[in-house]
């Protein structure tokens, strides 16, 4: 059952990225371009997401278990360390360079855009390097 849930959640998430236009790098770069011509739209994507996810998390986190799994797995790492900051700096640089982050990049494979396929392959190389380096 939780594989079906994964598939459906992936589809809903992917459609959300399409409707919000977060899948379009031009839109993302417009959002990050606050010093020139700023497109604030993507702030509303975050607001929309948080309006639902904040209450859901706090309502359910103390429940015994999720419906289709034996326990909740919630990240426990609280450390503000160099890895967190350096990683976020690298991510921000790559995001600002192309306008793609992991979700929209993978979703955009559906459009058979050669550039996004190259980006995704490179991203997986980056995952691999980081997993070996840490």
């Amino acid at each position: 059952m939780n594989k079906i849930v994964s598939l459906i959640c992936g589809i809903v998430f992917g459609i959300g990225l399409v409707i919000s236009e977060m899948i379009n790098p031009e839109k993302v770069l417009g959002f990050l371009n606050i010093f020139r011509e700023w497109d604030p739209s993507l702030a509303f994507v975050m607001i929309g997401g948080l309006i639902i996810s904040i209450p859901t998390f706090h309502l359910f986190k103390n429940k015994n278990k999720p419906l289709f799994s034996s326990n909740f797995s919630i990240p426990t790492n609280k450390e503000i360390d160099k890895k967190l900051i350096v990683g976020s700096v690298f991510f921000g640089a790559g995001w600002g360079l192309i306008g793609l982050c992991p979700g929209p990049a993978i979703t955009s494979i559906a459009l058979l855009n050669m550039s996004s396929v190259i980006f995704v392959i490179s991203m997986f190389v980056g995952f691999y390097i980081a997993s070996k380096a840490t």
Partner: protein
Amino acid sequence: MNIVNFTPVSALTGGLLIGLSVALFFILNGRMIGISGIASNFLVSKNNRIENLFFLVGLILGPLIYNIISNKEINISISNSLILLIAGGVLVGFGTRLSSGCTSGHGISGISRFSLRSIIATITFMIVGILTVFITGML
């Protein structure tokens, strides 16, 4: 600064769907969505590998299903050179794995938990993203 291309309604609608996906995944499967985590764990970890694969397949089906339902074409444009695409992809992959999260994992799931780690990560990648766009815009 000028405000351009502002589309708050579609952005909010898409955001609500993303929030719905995060909420369902948590209530039903017990996990907080972070796409970089799902994708990189699919690559390097045996834990939940099939579940992670199904999520990634779902992501890719999203635009196709949207296209069938709405009959609207989805257009994106990426005009970067090959070298920049590779550099950007590696930076995003390496960085999100190192910091354990991306726009979804830190920006939505982490902030939902009021995690200080995620709030700091989100502020950091936003500022660096803004600076990167500012600098590349001058070149």
